[in-house]
């Protein structure tokens, strides 16, 4: 049975050419089923937004795309998640390499207690790069890509934690870019920073999507409407029921002409 689903998923992925293809994903925290039957294809070089009320499993789902949930005891995944057609939950998958390819930006900017330079060099270093000149290049490149280079180029030796909240978040984006990922998962990256900094990050996302596949979880529907190309709406009908993917389509359609009544209610602000 599982094998058959798997084969179907691979075939579907070959047809769609999606960067990430999720088929019939169920997610469990212990005995509690948090997500049920999620099937979604994440498009290449586009921004996909996950929206929905608190506790609807959108962050959980995001974290299942680079297996960050593995770090939580008692979690379990059923179903298939394909990255470029390869099952990321297969036995022979190197989780370390998966997380390099699928980078993650967290809700709270979490720069390490190191200098700005060392924060960026951290990733390349753990993957074995020693050469100082190469590291210098990567640090400059990554900070430039993250629109932060101009602001910090004269103080690379200062602690990353001394930067402002918005800068810290861009530093974290640069840190992820330094390991050359293919996908960026962003878990409410702007929820803890001011509007001006949010603007900068949204501009940055727009620039980055040319080279990366981006998935963003956001509470802010205006943000989803502004930045994303595709939108997925998640909802748990009740707190003890698993969340489901209610609607998934191009952002314009989801926001102007949703198919499901519940999506419409949510985006027009009737609940959530």
């Amino acid at each position, binding site marked *: 049975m599982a094998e058959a689903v798997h084969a179907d998923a691979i075939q579907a992925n070959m047809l769609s050419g999606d960067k990430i293809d999720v088929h019939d994903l169920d997610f469990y925290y212990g005995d509690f089923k948090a997500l049920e039957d999620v099937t979604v294809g994440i498009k290449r070089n586009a921004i996909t937004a996950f929206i929905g009320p608190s506790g609807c499993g959108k962050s959980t789902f995001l974290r299942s795309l680079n297996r960050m949930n593995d770090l939580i005891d008692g979690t379990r995944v059923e179903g298939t998640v394909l990255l470029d057609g390869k099952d990321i939950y297969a036995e022979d998958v190197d989780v370390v390499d998966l997380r390099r390819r699928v980078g993650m930006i967290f809700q709270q900017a979490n720069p390490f207690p190191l200098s700005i330079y060392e924060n960026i060099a951290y990733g390349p270093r*753990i993957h074995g790069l020693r050469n100082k000149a190469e590291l210098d290049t990567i640090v400059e490149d990554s900070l430039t890509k993250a629109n932060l280079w101009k602001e910090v180029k004269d103080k690379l030796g200062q602690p990353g934690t001394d930067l402002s909240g918005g800068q810290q978040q861009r530093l974290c984006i640069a840190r992820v870019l330094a390991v050359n990922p293919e996908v960026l998962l962003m878990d409410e990256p702007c929820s803890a920073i001011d509007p001006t900094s949010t603007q900068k990050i949204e501009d940055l996302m727009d620039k980055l999507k040319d080279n990366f596949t981006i998935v963003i979880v956001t509470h802010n529907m205006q943000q989803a409407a502004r930045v994303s190309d595709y939108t997925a709406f998640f909802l748990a009908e009740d707190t003890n029921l698993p969340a489901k993917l209610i609607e998934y389509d191009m952002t314009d359609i989801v926001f102007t002409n949703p198919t499901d009544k519940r999506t419409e209610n949510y985006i027009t602000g009737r609940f959530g």
Partner: protein
Amino acid sequence: MRSRIMDKIAMGILWANGFLTIAILAMIIGYVVVKGLPAMSLSFIFTSPHGIEQSGGIFPTIVASLYVTILTVIFTTPIAVGAAVYLSEYVKQGRLVTIIRFGADTLSGVPSIVLGLFGLALFVYILGFGWSMLSGALTLTLMALPILMRTTEDALKAVPNAWRQGSMGLGATKWQTIRRVILPAAMPRILTGVVLAVGRVFGETAVLMFTVGMAINLPIFPNEPGRAMTTHLYLLATEGISMKTAYGTALLLMVIILLFNLSARKIFNKTQR
């Protein structure tokens, strides 16, 4: 009106309690300083006892105490830090961890004289290390281990989870995360723990009487016996040899431990941003 008076009374009592604590501390320190200061001199610190120990200095005992303490730190730190990292970062929190923690807590509650007896039996006799710096340090390791393990665990717990996730999210392995992010971040607190444990070890008496011996000897190798400052102090006072020298030794002991504690605070403040 009544509540105001009550407030005044409560304040007064609390103030008195606080004052009493400080006063007792000041009294002890003051007493030792006043009694010990006359004995203090460079030759007291840097020469050996003469005759029947009434005159001369206490240099060999200072060396013995420092020797045993440093050896203990060398034994204890890697084991304690390793165990703490294992317990708080690797193992699933559950039965086994609870048992190990309970064991550590119990070990730290064992009276030091019992530990000393155990050290005498195991290290001095059975393993044949004799009265020596080595026997002393090994026994003191048993004492310092749970203390340092718990402080290290607390230090690791104080490291924000966001850094673990950030590191793992970049594709770092668990060990890379621990070595490059978690341990450096926890280091100030761990070092503080080491220095506080050193304070405990340095002031220990019973264990050292049992395992290091009482011979006045300037130890060079770890298999040599010696007499710790605390043992020396005990013998000077109880054998009625010289109260003046006893107070001098006590003063020096306190000063050294105070220096340890001050340096612990300094390390902590310096690395804490």
